C-alpha cells in the first residue's frame, strides 16, 4: 500500500460544510405534524435538482437535518420541502415564518431514475412521508406523460388525516392517465377507500412485470414488504428502486454516520437499485 500523497488531493475547493442562506417564502400546513416550506435559495442554480435528492436545512443555533426536495424540479427559483415536526430541528424549521432566514446545503445524493422509466409501466409506492421525495419524480413523469406506459401511485398512510398533498392527489385522481390508490391503516366510519397496508395494493394493481419499474419510499419495514410484493408480482430486483434513511451530519461523505453496509447513504444513496443493497437490507441493525 502506497502512502504517497497525490498533489491533486490537496486541491482547493469550497467548504462543503458552510451553509448558504435561504429565505422562507411560504409555509403551509399539510397535516397536524407536517408542514411544507417554499424557500428561496440565495444562489439560484441553473441545474435542476434530481427527484429524490435532499438538502441539509439548518436553523441557526439549533441544528441541521437532511430533508428531501418535494417540489417540482422544473421550478428553479423555489425549493420546496415537506417536513414532519418530530424533534428539535424539524420543529424549529416548521416554525420559521415567511421572510426568515435558514441555512442550506445541497442538493445531495442520488435520485429516482426517471429517464429509465421511458416506455415502461411506472409503479410509485409511498408510505407516509415517503411521498414527499417521490413527488418530484411524479411531476417529472406527468410533465412528459406520453413517454411512459401506465403510471400508478400506491400510497399508504396511517389515517385519512395523514394524507399529504390531498388536493393534488385528488386532482391527479381525476386524470385518466395516472392511477392513484390510497390506503389507510386505521379508517374512521366515513372512509370509503382501501384499508390495510400499502403492499395489498400491489397485488391488486396491474402492470407488465417485464416492462415495469418501481420507485419505493417509506419506513424501512414498509419498503421491505412492498419489495417482496413486487417480487411476487414478477418484478426483477433490477427494476426496483428504494430510498434509505440514515443519520447524516455532513451529507458529503466525511462524517461516517450514514453508513449502510459498504455504502454511504449521502453519497451512494439515498436512492438505491434494490439488487445492489438486497443482501444488506435484511440484516438487522446494519
Amino acid at each position, binding site marked *: *500500500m*502506497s*502512502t*504517497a*500523497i*497525490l498533489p491533486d*488531493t*490537496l*486541491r*482547493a*475547493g469550497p*467548504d*462543503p*460544510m*458552510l*451553509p448558504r*442562506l435561504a429565505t422562507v417564502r411560504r409555509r403551509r400546513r399539510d397535516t397536524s405534524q407536517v408542514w411544507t416550506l417554499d424557500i428561496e435559495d440565495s444562489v439560484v442554480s441553473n441545474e435542476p435538482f434530481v427527484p429524490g435528492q435532499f438538502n441539509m436545512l*439548518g436553523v*441557526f*443555533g*439549533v*441544528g*441541521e437535518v437532511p430533508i428531501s426536495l418535494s417540489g417540482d424540479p422544473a421550478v428553479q427559483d423555489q425549493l420546496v420541502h415537506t417536513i*414532519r415536526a*418530530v*424533534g428539535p430541528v*424539524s420543529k424549529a424549521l416548521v416554525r420559521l415564518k415567511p*421572510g*426568515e*432566514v435558514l*441555512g442550506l446545503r445541497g442538493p445531495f445524493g442520488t435520485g429516482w431514475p426517471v429517464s429509465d422509466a421511458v416506455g415502461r409501466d411506472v409503479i410509485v409506492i409511498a408510505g407516509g412521508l415517503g411521498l414527499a421525495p417521490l413527488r418530484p419524480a411524479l411531476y417529472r413523469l406527468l410533465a412528459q406523460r406520453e413517454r411512459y406506459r401506465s403510471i400508478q401511485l400506491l400510497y399508504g398512510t396511517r389515517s385519512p388525516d395523514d394524507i399529504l398533498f390531498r388536493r393534488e392527489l385528488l386532482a391527479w385522481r381525476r386524470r385518466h392517465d395516472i392511477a392513484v390508490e390510497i390506503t389507510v391503516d386505521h379508517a374512521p366510519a366515513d372512509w370509503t377507500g382501501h384499508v390495510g397496508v400499502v403492499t395489498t395494493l400491489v397485488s391488486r394493481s396491474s402492470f407488465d412485470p417485464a416492462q415495469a419499474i418501481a420507485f419505493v419510499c417509506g419506513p424501512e419495514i414498509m419498503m421491505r414488504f412492498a419489495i417482496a410484493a413486487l417480487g411476487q408480482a414478477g418484478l426483477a430486483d433490477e427494476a426496483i428502486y428504494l430510498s434509505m*434513511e*440514515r*443519520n447524516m*451530519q*455532513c451529507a*458529503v*461523505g*466525511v*462524517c*461516517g*454516520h450514514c*453508513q449502510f*453496509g*459498504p*455504502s*454511504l447513504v449521502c*453519497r451512494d444513496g439515498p436512492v438505491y437499485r434494490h439488487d445492489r443493497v438486497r443482501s*444488506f437490507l435484511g*440484516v*438487522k*441493525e*446494519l
Partner: protein
Amino acid sequence: MAEYITLAVDGLQALLDELKRREYRVLGPTIRDQAIVYDDIESLRDLPMGWTDEQSGGHYRLVARQDDAIFGYPVGPHSWKRFLHPPVLPLWQAESAGNSVRITTTQGPDQPFAFIGVRSCDLHAIAIQDRVLIGGQHVDPSYRDRRKGAFIVAVNCGEAGGTCFCASMNTGPKVEDGFDLALTEIVIDDQRLFLTEVGSPAGRDVLLQVPHRPATPDEIAAADGVTARTAASMGRVMRSDDVRELLLGNLDHPRWDEVAERCLTCGNCTMVCPTCFCTSVEDSSDLLSGKSGRTRHWASCFTLDFSYIHGGSVRGSARSRYRQWMTHKLASWVDQFGSSGCVGCGRCITWCPVGIDITEEVRAIREDRPAERTHHED
C-alpha cells in the same frame, strides 16, 4: 536510488532547531500522564529517551530501557489525527443582521506542523485519512490546510510492540514513501546514530542547515537489520488478504454476540485508532449577542446517538455496534475509500479496557468459533 545521510544525536537537535527556525510547530513524542503522547517539542530533552512502553491486550505500561534509545517505544495512545483532524473544531459562526445572517468561517492554524517520529503505520493512517477527507468529491478544507504544509520526520520502528501487526497489513515496519525525512536509530561502536533517508526536496532543503555526513554502507546495512528484526517480531498477526469477504459474508455470525458480551461500547478503540475519522456537529447559540455557531467533534460508532434517526437508533445493540466498527475498519472501508481502514498499529487492542483484540476476533470468525470463552467440552 534512495538517498541516505547520517545524523548524530546533536544533529537531531539541530534538525529540531532548524524546523523551529523555519516556523514549524514541532510536535513529537513526550511523556505525560504515564504514557508516551504527542505534544509540542522544544528540544531532545522532551523526547522519551531511555523509555519504552510495554503493551498487550488492555495493558499499557511505561518501562525504563536498558539503553538511552530515543525512539525505542511502540506507538502510544495518541496519533497524528489529533492535529490534522482535531477532536473539536469550530466550523463557523453566524451573526444575525436585521433579516439576514452573516456567516464567518474559522481560520486554520497559523503555523505548519512538523511531526517528529511518525511510524510507518501512522504514515499509512495519514494517507488513509487523506483519501477519506480530501481524496473524494468533497474536500475538508480544515484537514487540507493542516495537512498541506506538514513536514514529516518518520522513524523506522526498532522494536515491535506486543499488539503490533503492521506486517500483516502491509503497512510497515519500514516506511516507504510519503515522508520528508525518515530516521532509523542505530548504534555503531557505542555511538547512537540516525541513518536518515531523504524523501522529498523539502527534506533535502532542511538538511542544508543541519550538520550531517554521508551514510556508510555499514550504517545502511545496520538500519536494514533493524527493520528486518522488527518485522520478524510482531506481537500479533492477522491474515488480511480475504478479510473483507470473510466479514461481509458473516454479518450474522454468532461470534458477534460473544464479543458483544465483553464489549463495554466505551468507544476507546475509535478514539485511539489513527484512521477513525467520524464526526458529529453541534450548534450553539448565545442568546445575549444573537450569535450562533457550529462545532464539529470526533464521534464514535459505539454510541447510540451515532445512528439515531427519528424513532430510535439503527444500531441499538452492542453486537451491531461492534460489528459496525470492525466491518467498517476491515471490510466496507475498502468499498468506500479504496483501502483497508486498519494499519495494524494495535492501539485498539492495547487501549480496550477489556482487551478485545481485533486480530483474535477475525481469527475466531475465520475458524468459525462462535463462543470460545463460554465453550466447554467435557
